[in-house]
């Protein structure tokens, strides 16, 4: 057997601008491929991505060579395996229980959604990225994390700083300096709120973790909140914008979804079509083999869920948004022990609550120039603007 083929021609810029044709080529010709520009072996088939994520004993999340630890000033749960991972994850789980989603976060989200929608002017072209998608995702996260005094702007700044820091594989100074600043601010806000929830416990993540019978270390409580900030704003924001784009550019589908009320299908299809988190990395712990290629111990494989979600073995016309598609499993929330903690939160807030409210409020919303929408991102991907006329 031999090592995976090498693709020297793919650049990071290409992947940031327009990755899907690259992945389609890879799925056909080199489904397991070394990509020197990202220093990873990419896996582009659905079956392989799922296999890796479901097999943490062989494919570890604990890769100490990434800039994540420096950016988060902590060894976070996302980079841990086994018992330690589970313990830190379970510490935060009660916040996201079905009961809390139904009785606390759902109703709160609806109130904020109404308030933020009230601010949008009718009849004008409005960019929904900075006016709705970003701030609303930031607001509900600040609340459920237990740092409600953090502003939407702060939350979004911190989130981007964490993402840019954790993705700073070039080890440049600026992203680390920016995230160091963000860390100072976050630490201050989290500490201040810790005093508050100790005195008056609630269901927020900070409170649940701090007031637990056998709490995890303070360093990991803070790290968990930062993981949620780094991983809980972009994705619902990008998912929402992607779905709006998908529905507005397919009016027939929008009509059917309106009639059926099956907004969850529009949501699932949006996150399938353009996965907000496109890729994840795992460190290979033992020599192994994937699809006939030798994968030596120490290799970092990258599951490309963006590509898995378009895999011809699973989907017909996977490159098209089709909210009426027969439901198909996608990998946008990952799988295995690191399966997204915010899955149910995102499905409820964006899918079941916001979409129907938004399209009811602006029944004649129009995307006048779809070609003005700019898509960007390799690790995280979504539209960076969504100029629609609200009516």
């Amino acid at each position, binding site marked *: 057997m031999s090592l995976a083929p090498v693709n020297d021609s793919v650049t990071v810029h290409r992947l940031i601008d327009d990755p899907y044709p690259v992945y389609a080529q890879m799925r056909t010709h080199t489904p397991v491929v070394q990509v020197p520009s990202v220093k990873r072996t990419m896996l582009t088939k659905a079956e392989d991505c799922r296999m890796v994520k479901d097999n943490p004993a062989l494919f570890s999340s604990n890769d100490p060579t990434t800039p994540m630890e420096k950016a988060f000033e902590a060894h976070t749960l996302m980079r841990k395996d086994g018992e330690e991972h589970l313990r830190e994850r379970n510490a935060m789980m009660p916040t996201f229980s079905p009961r809390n989603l139904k009785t606390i976060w759902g109703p709160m989200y609806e109130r904020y959604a109404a308030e933020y929608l009230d601010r949008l002017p009718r009849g004008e072209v409005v960019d929904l990225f900075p006016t709705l998608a970003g701030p609303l995702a930031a607001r509900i996260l600040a609340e459920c994390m237990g740092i409600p005094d953090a502003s939407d702007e702060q939350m979004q700044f911190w989130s981007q700083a964490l993402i840019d820091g954790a993705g700073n594989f070039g080890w440049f100074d600026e992203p680390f300096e920016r995230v160091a600043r963000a860390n100072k601010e976050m630490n201050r806000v989290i500490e201040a709120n810790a005093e508050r929830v100790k005195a008056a416990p609630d269901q927020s993540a900070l409170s649940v973790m701090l007031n637990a019978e056998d709490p995890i270390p303070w360093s990991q409580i803070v790290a968990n909140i930062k993981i949620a900030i780094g991983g809980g704003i972009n994705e619902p924001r990008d998912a929402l914008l992607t779905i709006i784009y998908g529905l507005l550019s397919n009016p027939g589908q929008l009509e059917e979804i309106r009639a059926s009320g099956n907004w969850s299908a529009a949501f699932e299809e949006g996150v399938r079509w353009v996965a907000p988190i496109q890729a994840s990395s795992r460190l290979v712990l033992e020599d192994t083999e994937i699809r006939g290629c030798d994968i030596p111990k120490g290799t970092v494989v990258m599951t490309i869920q963006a590509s898995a979600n378009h895999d011809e073995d699973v989907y017909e016309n996977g490159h098209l948004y089709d909210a009426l598609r027969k439901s198909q499993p996608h990998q946008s929330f990952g799988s295995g022990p690191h399966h997204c903690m915010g*899955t149910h939160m995102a499905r409820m807030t964006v899918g079941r609550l916001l979409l129907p409210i938004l399209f009811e409020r602006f029944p004649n919303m129009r995307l006048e120039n779809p070609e003005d929408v700019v898509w960007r991102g390799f690790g995280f991907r979504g539209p960076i603007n969504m100029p629609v006329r609200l009516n």
Partner: protein
Amino acid sequence: MPRITFIAADGAETVVDAGEGDSLMQVARAHNVDGILAECGGEMMCSTCHVYVEGDWLDRTGPADEDERDMLDFAPCEITDASRLSCQVKITDDMDGLVVRLPERQV
């Protein structure tokens, strides 16, 4: 080896041999039974492995406990007394012949 029948929402039946000690979810995935997503891989965190245990078989599998019922709340289809998360059902040799039905969707 216990023999297990999965009945899809459209009535299609898949009959498979299960390894003892595996969970019902692992059996389904090992045999590519459609309709069980099991996104979290069996950690009881995703509620995408919902099944209905057919008839008297519930006596063998037992009902969902309180934690499992809480998690089942996330499943999109109707939850009944026969609802289980298949990752929480361990196959034992007295389950030979077990029949479970799959819901229409898992998300």
